[in-house]
């Protein structure tokens, strides 16, 4: 999503690494204070990004059932000596409710922070940062630049393949295939006549693209220069310092 704020201007590598780092330290939180602190941090980041909050709520939607399922499971199946409510194998206790709340918080934190990454960073920036982060792997002959180019081409062709799918679906519909009817098995079966032509056409696109790339002098990724460069600046350093501060406060707040 286009926009402009401090978060947008951060080096994508910093955003990428911090997102993963944050997901890691979320698991260090173990009491009300530490969870509350992390929540304040995430909301602060959301505020600084100037991205509309609605998008974060929308980011939760696909995960709704998973969250509900896990939370309910935690709430009713946590063993306890002091149950509030008990019925056959279901037990509702204070401990269970607390753990369920923590799990719920964990989901929210992780989803919000990763939504923040994807909303403020373009896919190509993410693929660039992966390339940059994986650079050391060149030592063990891992083809970093090739993998990064593959990734960026894959991203570039997603909308094209979606178009292709729509076209094939329309063509099949014109021949009387109904994708919305019948049971689950029948619906899955209806997708086979989409997948096969899609597969064939993606191969032909790949062939065309390979020819086009070769004609433009692409050899094997060796000796290439880069047009897009990532610019590391002072604000990226400060972000890392800030994150270190967050970690220290978190370590201070959590109970041992």
């Amino acid at each position, binding site marked *: 999503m286009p926009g402009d704020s401090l978060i947008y201007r951060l080096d994508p590598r910093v955003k990428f690494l911090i997102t993963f780092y944050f997901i890691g330290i979320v698991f260090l939180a173990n009491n009300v204070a530490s969870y509350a602190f992390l929540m304040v941090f995430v909301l602060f980041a959301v505020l600084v990004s100037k991205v509309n909050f609605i998008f974060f709520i929308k980011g939760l939607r696909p995960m709704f059932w998973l969250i509900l399922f896990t939370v309910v499971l935690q709430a009713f199946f946590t063993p306890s000596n002091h149950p509030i409510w008990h019925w056959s194998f279901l037990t509702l206790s204070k401990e269970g409710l607390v753990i369920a709340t923590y799990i719920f918080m964990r989901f929210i934190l992780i989803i919000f922070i990763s939504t923040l990454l994807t909303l403020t960073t373009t896919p*190509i920036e993410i693929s660039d940062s992966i390339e940059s982060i994986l650079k050391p792997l060149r030592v063990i002959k891992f083809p970093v630049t090739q993998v990064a180019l593959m990734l*960026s081409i894959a991203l*570039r062709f997603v909308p094209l393949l979606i178009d292709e799918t729509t076209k094939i679906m329309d063509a099949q519909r014109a021949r009387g295939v109904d994708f919305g009817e019948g049971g689950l098995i029948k619906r899955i079966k209806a997708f086979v006549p989409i997948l096969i032509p899609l597969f064939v056409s993606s191969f032909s696109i790949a062939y*065309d693209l390979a*020819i086009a790339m*070769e004609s433009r002098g692409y050899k094997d990724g060796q000796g290439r*220069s880069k*047009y897009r460069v990532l610019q590391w600046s002072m604000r990226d350093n400060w972000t890392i310092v800030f994150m270190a501060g967050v970690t220290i406060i978190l370590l201070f707040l959590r109970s041992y």
Partner: protein
Amino acid sequence: MTNIISIKDVYYKYPGSEVYAINGISLDIQKNQWLSIVGKNGSGKTTLTRLIDGLEESESGSIAIDGVISDEQTIWEARKKIGIVFQNPDHQFVGATVEDDVAFGLENQGMPREQMVESVDRALAMVDMQDYKKRDPQSLSGGQKQRVAIAGVLAIQPQIIIMDESTSMLDPDGRKTVINLIEELRSKQDLTVISITHDIEETQLSDRIIVLNSGKVVKDTTPAELYNLRGQLQEYGLEEPFTNLVAENLTDVIDFKGYIDEKGLIDQLCKLNSNT
């Protein structure tokens, strides 16, 4: 005139095929010439251009680009002199944005970044797409995509541009801008253009036209002479130009001796108008 491309006795057949896709072609193409290649589907037009660019290897014969005979070592240098604009604008876009795509050929040559930024801007300005620099290719029209593809080719400053049915998937507007652009570029710089096409308007602009049939050159002539063949054109998979068809029906009032181009026809019609 020097020959920029010199093809001698080239034979080629696709793996697993019995028939020769290119069946003994010899052809010299001069610098700064606009050559149209026409012919039915499967006559070997695209194969010929792929052989020129070394994308396929010929079975026998030789191809020289700018005086250097192509082989596995020299082909990479040769490719820097040749740019191909393909048929489907979507299938040749490598970059995630317009500027990234234009830079792709330059990245392959290992050009330093500062130079690349300049070259990309210059190439985009040539095709008048500089305002779309940051755009995602999916948001462009077909004609705009082909213009970006041309910019990608121009960025490497080639001597030869091959248009492999580059206008066939465009609407009339897009087609016109692309053709005009190529014509304009050729008049400004030393550029050889090879265009494969089914479009008569496009061939009318060329200096020379060759007709391929079953992998052989069956006609090597000028557009005016080719269109004089009238009925025979259909054998080569071509239509008669619209101007010819109009003039043919007016033979009793205007002067029609064979091929007539648009300007000629308009002149004739004006004359007719002033007579009556």
